[in-house]
């Protein structure tokens, strides 16, 4: 079972490495959106510092949504998904492995470059840490919730639009709490409460979302 999960993760990473343009699109989108804000708003340090957490979070959210459609689509099209359903490993665990691989490909790079991008907003070092940490806890939640939406809209026409409509309302709490962490830290309150809340949401989503996505996949494939 462990071998099957490792195999799924390694396979998805290998596929991403051989088709790196998909990964780059997401990262470039994130970099471009975040970099455009200081140019558009103007060089007012105080204003930039205020909007920084929100801008980075919104950009990360949109970037991760950009990659969502691909979580299951290719496997569905070529029949691999059917084989996963008929495999020896429970589908929920396979989905969890796929979501984890998806996050490594499309979420982790955003977390890693976020401190560099945040420098454009004149954030203090401590805030950079809080922001990156909130993204590190928050982007996996986005991937997990997004996987349910991707599974539900699998194989539908206009799946992209429907997926955004389905998933966005569920993303809002993550966005509010995630961006709130850095804002609270900036105001001197400390972002611990928000980070703990994000951690709790991550555990909850990690435990339940893969099974919900697996159930949705079984319906989609019928």
């Amino acid at each position: 079972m462990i071998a099957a999960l490792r195999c799924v993760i390694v396979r998805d990473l290998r596929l991403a490495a051989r088709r790196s343009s998909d990964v780059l699109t997401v990262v470039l989108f994130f970099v471009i959106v975040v970099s455009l804000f200081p140019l558009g708003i103007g060089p007012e340090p105080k204003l930039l510092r205020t909007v920084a957490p929100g801008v980075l979070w919104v950009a990360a959210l949109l970037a991760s949504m950009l990659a969502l459609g691909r979580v299951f689509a290719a496997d569905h099209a070529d029949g691999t998904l059917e084989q996963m359903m008929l495999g020896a490993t429970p589908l929920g665990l396979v989905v969890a492995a796929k979501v984890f691989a998806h996050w490594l490909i499309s979420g982790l790079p955003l977390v890693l470059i976020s401190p560099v991008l945040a420098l454009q907003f004149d954030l203090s070092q401590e805030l950079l840490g809080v922001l990156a940490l909130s993204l590190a806890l928050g982007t996996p939640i986005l991937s997990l919730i997004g996987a349910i939406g991707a599974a539900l809209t699998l194989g539908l026409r206009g799946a992209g639009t429907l997926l955004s409509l389905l998933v966005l309302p569920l993303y809002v709490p993550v966005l509010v709490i995630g961006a709130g962490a850095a804002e609270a830290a900036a105001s001197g309150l400390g972002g611990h409460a928000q980070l703990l809340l994000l951690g709790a949401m991550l555990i909850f989503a990690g435990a339940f979302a893969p099974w919900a996505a697996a159930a949705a996949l079984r319906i989609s494939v019928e």
Partner: protein
Amino acid sequence: METTLEAVDLRCARGERTLFDGLSFTLKGGELLRIGGPNGSGKTSLLRIACGLLEADRGEVRWGGEDIRRLKEEFWVRLLYIGHANALKDDLTASENLSVACTLAGVVADELQIGEALVRLGLAGRANLPARVLSQGQRRRVALARLALGADAPLWVLDEPFTALDTAAIDCVQGLIGGHVSRGGGVLYTTHYEASIGAAVSRRIDLAGT
């Protein structure tokens, strides 16, 4: 070990059309069962129901007397299903594809066995080519190479295994199927090709297609 697949009073409708109704069959170990019928008569749907991918509108499929929708993974480890789609990734090589397919199915196969299976299907020297550059027939061969490693699964369900294959490959696949049946495995398959597979018990169900 009980290795009987039983379909009881199955009904499947697609939209307004009833594909089949009241269909029952039993497939014991060592038997070969071919599903025939014209295009669109519900052969693939029947196979998908037998695997548990699709829910029948009525009736149930049992493995060793138990409903497969309750057995789930317990049934699926004993099943080798090869559908219409080859389940190959264009960017992975033939041997990587086969290795992933085996691992997902819970079959342990080392690199040597993977290589042997590919050679057996006539893919010697193609193992390290990405699936993207293989022809349709070669891609089908990679998918079917699982049969050479699937001796442990007592039930094979094959959807049109002979499509896109040349005569040499068809002979090879027929040999694999015949070997499996003689080992005591059950094979449920569809084909339009008049296959000649040596089996002690070989039956055929024809779906009418209304």
